[in-house]
Structures are given as C-alpha cells and as structure tokens.
C-alpha cells in the first residue's frame, strides 16, 4: 500500500479547480485505493478530496461512520459530486489535513441532496445531514480550490447554538 503526499496550505496548488472524471479505468481504481489509505492514515480522517494529494480530478472519499450516533451512508466513493438541493444551516468546527494545527468554525448547510458517480461511473443520489453533509461540503470546496479557512466565521460571539446539555 502506498500513502500519497498531502499538499498543505499555503501550497498554491490547493487553489486549483479540479476537472471532471471521464475515465473509470484501472488507473482510477488503483488511485482510489491509495487515496483511501491516505485518508485513513490521517488524524480524524473522515474524508479526502483528490486535489489534497495533487490529483486535480473531481474525486472525493467520505466515511463518517466512526462518529457515534449519526446518520450516514458508510464508506463512499463520490466522483463528479454535485449538490442539487440544500436546506438549513449550522455552525461547526472543522479541521483539515491540508491545514495542519488550525481549526475553525464554518457555517454549512444542515441537509442536502447529492448526486455523484461511484468508482464504476454509476450515478447515485444521497440525502445527507449533519456531519456527513458538512464533510461533503468541505470536500466539494477542495474540488473548487477552496479551503475551510476561506469560509471561517469568528470563534467569538458564536450565536448559533447546537445541542444544549445543561
């Protein structure tokens, strides 16, 4: 198994807009294996986008199943993903393997409908919410050359409440 090198900010290549995948060939399948190994080797590692390893194609892997008690679709290969509907918004803390030693608050849609192809080019549709919806929005940003630090809201004066425990 080989691990791919993660590009880290301020590497200008992270601003690249990735191109759609057109060939679902053996080369893609081999790349997906390396990409997944790289995602799982990282801290947290619930998602990765191909441009994070210098491959500027619209490929995202997602697996938020390690988070307890949330709705999710398990391990996902999302190729040429597109959000077709979204609803609600929520503030949450994000970190990124391409932005080490920094986390910040970002507003994301709470629910969304996603269309994406799998590793064989078959089209699928997903209704996502919460962490999984947040993760795909973060990864889609990578495909468009954006990082979560481009979308930060203040850590102070946080007006958006989440779950309340007391």
């Amino acid at each position, binding site marked *: 198994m080989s691990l791919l090198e993660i590009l880290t900010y301020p590497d200008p290549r992270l601003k690249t807009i990735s191109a759609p995948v057109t060939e679902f060939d053996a080369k893609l399948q081999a790349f997906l294996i390396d990409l997944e190994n790289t995602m799982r080797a990282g801290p*947290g590692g*619930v*998602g*990765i986008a191909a441009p994070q390893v210098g491959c500027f194609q619209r490929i995202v892997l997602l697996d938020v199943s390690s988070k307890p008690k949330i709705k999710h679709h398990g391990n996902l290969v999302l190729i040429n993903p597109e959000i077709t509907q979204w609803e609600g918004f929520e503030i949450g803390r994000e970190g990124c393997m391409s932005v080490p030693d920094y*986390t910040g608050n970002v507003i994301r849609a709470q629910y969304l409908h996603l269309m994406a192809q799998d590793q064989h080019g078959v089209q699928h549709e997903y209704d996502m919410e919460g962490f999984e919806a947040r993760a795909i929005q973060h990864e889609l940003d990578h495909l468009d050359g954006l990082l979560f630090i481009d979308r930060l809201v203040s850590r102070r004066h946080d007006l958006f409440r989440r779950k309340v425990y*007391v």
Partner: protein
Amino acid sequence: MSQWYMLTLVGKDQLGIVAKVTTALYKSGCNLGEASMLRLGGNFSIMLMVSYDNDKKQLYVLLEDVVRELNLHLHIDAIEGHLHQHRDPEVRITVHGADRAGIVAQVTSVLTEAGLNILDLESDVGGNTDNPFYIMHIEGIATQGIALLSHALQQLLAMQHPDLKVQLEPIETLVM
C-alpha cells in the same frame, strides 16, 4: 538566535494602534506569532508574541517612540514560546445572567474542580447601567470528561445561581 517575547500593550483606544506598533516591530526585524487584540472598556489591549534576535531592553527601545506617541503602557516578558502548539477545544460553555460580583470565580472554580482546562475565555458586560448583564464564553478541554463538567454546573446552578443561564456543548471537530 531569536527569542520569543510576550508583549502586553494597553492604552486608550484610538485609530492606528495596531498598524503603528506592528510597523515599528517589522522595521526592526521582528517577527510576529500568535496574538490577541481587542477593545476592552474603551481601552485597546494587545497580547502579542514577538520573535526578536536581540534582548528585552532593545525591544523596549525600538517601541519607545510609538509607545510615547500613542500613550501606551508596555510590558515585555521573555517567554518559553513555541508556535504550532494548538490544542483543540472539546467543550464550549456559555454563561449569562444579571451582572453581579463572583460569577466568573464561582463558575470557573467548579469547572476547574471538574477538570476543565480553559483555552479561551471572553466575557462582556452588556445591558445598561441600571440593568447590566454578564455574558461569558469559555472553550476548553474536559480532562475528566464532559459529563463531570455538566454535573458540576448543574449543582452550582441549583445551589447558588438558579437565575444564571448556563449552556454546555461539546465541540466536535471534523477533520477532513
């Protein structure tokens, strides 16, 4: 060999404090690290990590003019400083209620006992002179778990501060 210093600057708020202070530092070869700067009660306060390859006395000298011009109080400490030492907060606590003495002392004391390591605290007094309210946001690490913090706060509220509004929420950082 450069050394990290912690600069504390305080003075009546006015236009240009940050630009003038940091320009003086930059022109003398200093490099800035992490900082916290904000207006508190009409004063502007700066806590600033500065890397400099000379001694503390020289640092005072290079800021002499700007400190005099802006009428700032300056204090400098040589510190054991390092960048890239961030810790991710695990919990966020918001407290608000009618302002009175002792809220911070009592809330943070029970939280400390329950294992909270505070990473960030900001508080403010809002309302007006007749009806001031106090509001505080704390982010920290729950060294003994979040349940214990929640329990400690509930007890404090029940026993001493039934009117205080306290919210505790985990901060779940999603790393991608």
